[in-house]
């Protein structure tokens, strides 16, 4: 659990973060969302003290971040950033093992951990461990960047627009992988982005920031259905809100259990938006829904989407 307790940050006497309080539960994927200059990045960087907070305290599992030596604190927190910050003179293996090496792990343990992480990110360990960053594509670099942040199994992972500079296709698959890894590892993740679609796709909780203040904090659906202010309403997008709503609800919520239909199977975990897309492509107003094993467990119809 991370608690931000009335933190403020001033530059030149002007507050860029002001009296911000926020509690991120353990295991959450909390997205800090807002336009550029809203203080979301600064807030994130105050957690690992890359930026010192001027006022207020930040606690991780009840322990104030100021209580620890700064290097020790940062070695316990994973950190991934937009341009990856991979060390160009180190191979992928050495990059991923950065924090384990700082912590003095044994060679064999580091090697095993690198193998495990590369496999987790679907990069063949024997092909990739010896490569240099410039030999990787943007998407691969970003995978290595996130793997590096996870290397020492930190309890908390901070990500600052990690997928901001990648092409849309690679970004889509990376988002999918991050969601999977979050499910598998149960890590607490704080994720900064200005991209509302990305936030809706990944977040368990979203904090919307407006000029250094917290505009709204809640589940993605809350934000769309009950925006707390005009700012939030405008930011999440008055237009296209219907599609956004479809993209935060799952097929499982609206399906008709027990019924069957012919056609392309829609997974139980798919969003309603994905179901709509499938119906449009296949010219069908009703499609079967399948669970993880491929067994049909019900149907979803066009009318279910607008209920």
């Amino acid at each position: 659990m991370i608690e931000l307790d009335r933190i403020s940050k001033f530059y030149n006497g002007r507050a860029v973060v002001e009296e911000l309080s926020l509690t991120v539960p353990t295991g959450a994927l909390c997205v800090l969302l807002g336009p550029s200059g809203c203080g979301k990045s600064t807030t994130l960087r105050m957690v690992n003290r890359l930026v010192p907070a001027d006022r207020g305290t930040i606690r991780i599992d009840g322990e104030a971040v100021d209580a620890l030596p700064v290097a020790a604190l940062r070695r316990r927190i994973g950190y991934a950033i937009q341009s990856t910050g991979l060390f160009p003179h180190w191979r992928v293996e050495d990059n991923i093992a950065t924090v384990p090496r700082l912590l003095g792990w044994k060679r064999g343990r580091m090697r095993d951990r690198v193998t495990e992480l590369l496999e987790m990110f679907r990069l063949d360990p024997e092909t990739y461990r010896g490569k240099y960053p410039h030999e990787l594509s943007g998407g691969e670099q970003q995978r290595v960047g996130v793997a590096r942040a996870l290397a020492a199994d930190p309890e908390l992972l901070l990500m600052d627009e990690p997928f901001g500079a990648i092409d849309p296709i690679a970004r889509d698959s990376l988002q999918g992988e991050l969601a999977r890894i979050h499910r598998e590892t149960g890590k607490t993740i704080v994720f900064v982005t200005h991209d509302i679609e990305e936030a809706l796709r990944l977040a368990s909780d979203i904090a919307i920031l407006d000029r250094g203040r917290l505009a709204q904090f809640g589940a993605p659906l809350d934000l769309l259905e009950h925006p707390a202010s005009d700012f939030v309403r405008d930011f999440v997008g008055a237009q296209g809100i219907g599609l956004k709503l479809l993209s935060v609800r799952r097929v499982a919520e609206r399906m008709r259990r027990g019924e069957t239909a012919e056609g392309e199977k829609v997974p139980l975990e798919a969003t309603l938006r994905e179901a709509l897309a499938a119906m449009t492509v296949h010219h069908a107003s009703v499609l079967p829904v399948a669970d993880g094993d491929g067994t049909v467990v019900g149907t979803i119809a066009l009318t279910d989407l607008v209920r």
Partner: protein
Amino acid sequence: MTLSGAPARCRASSAFGWNPDRIALALVAVGAIAVAGGGFVSLAPNRLVSGRPVALWAAAGIPATAALALIGLALAGIAATPPRRMRHYAVAALAALLLIAVLLAAGTAARDLAAGAPPLARVSLGAGFWIAAAAAALAVLDGLQRADAGNFVRFLVGAAIAAAIAAMAAGGWFDALSLAREYASHRAVFGTALTRHVALVAGSVLPAILIGVPLGILACRRKRAEGAIFAVLNLLQTIPSIALFGLLIVPLSALAVAAPALARLGVGGIGAAPAVIALILYALLPVARNTAAGLSGIEPTIVDAARGMGMTERQIFWRVEVPLALPVLVAGLRIVTVQTIGLAVVAALIGAGGLGDFVFGGLGQDATDLVLLGALPTILLALVADFLLKAAAAALRR
């Protein structure tokens, strides 16, 4: 320690605390320590022996010392106020005043010391003077840099200081200094040496442009030639100047023997001919390299666009490539000119003349002030060339 990606923010955040001009303060401290350490000037019984150091207060008296101290304190005081643009200008102005005051004090010190000494005695500038003057000059530069002053303002400040110094010199303020007495006794040859030096530089840089620019174009157009051209030029640039001068002696004296007409024109193993040839060879690398860099630095899309609009290759070259590559070429010209001014000093060793005659003549006689008479104008020439060509490159970039 914060190693964030936003240094500007870090600096701005310290606006809460005391934020003095640390450089100006450090420079004032350095100057004060140098002056307090004694040895502002030195007094020698004649020009060929080294003198004993004399402190500022002993040489120029208490009032001059107090005046310097006051200006120094004022400068430190201004430097400690909160950073505003006006502060930076005030630092520059006070530092300029301090520089002139240091020079005035040197003149006074020399005059007073010389008045009480035998006629053959010489008063030379000491370490204390040089350090204090350099510190003041750097403080001027620092103030102008922080105020983000443009080239024009910098030029005006430089010209004003130079004019003040020239006025003091013309008014005879420095006449008692050994340096001025060396000048007085070499006045007849000084002008010749200076002209000769400038002629050596111009006579080397201009041919180097005529040869180097085509070489650079060739290197850029033919990637095969590029490796060979730069390998050879780089090799030439590595060879120490005096060795290259030496290596040229044999072929040139052979040439002079074989063709007496050339010998009558001044071509020979020693003298200006080997000097100019060597200086041209040294100058080729920066000229060719910057020409090639300027041309290959042009976005291919620009050339494509020009071609697409129907320009001929010749038009593309003169109207698109040359103007775009010119700033880089001028930057190379700056390097070449400054380098050649320095190397031309060494050319005096093979009888090419120039300001190097004073430098090596002074070394031979152990007369430091004669060395200075050669070295100071050389440094000034280099600084002026550097400033002018830098300004030219900046103007072309716009």
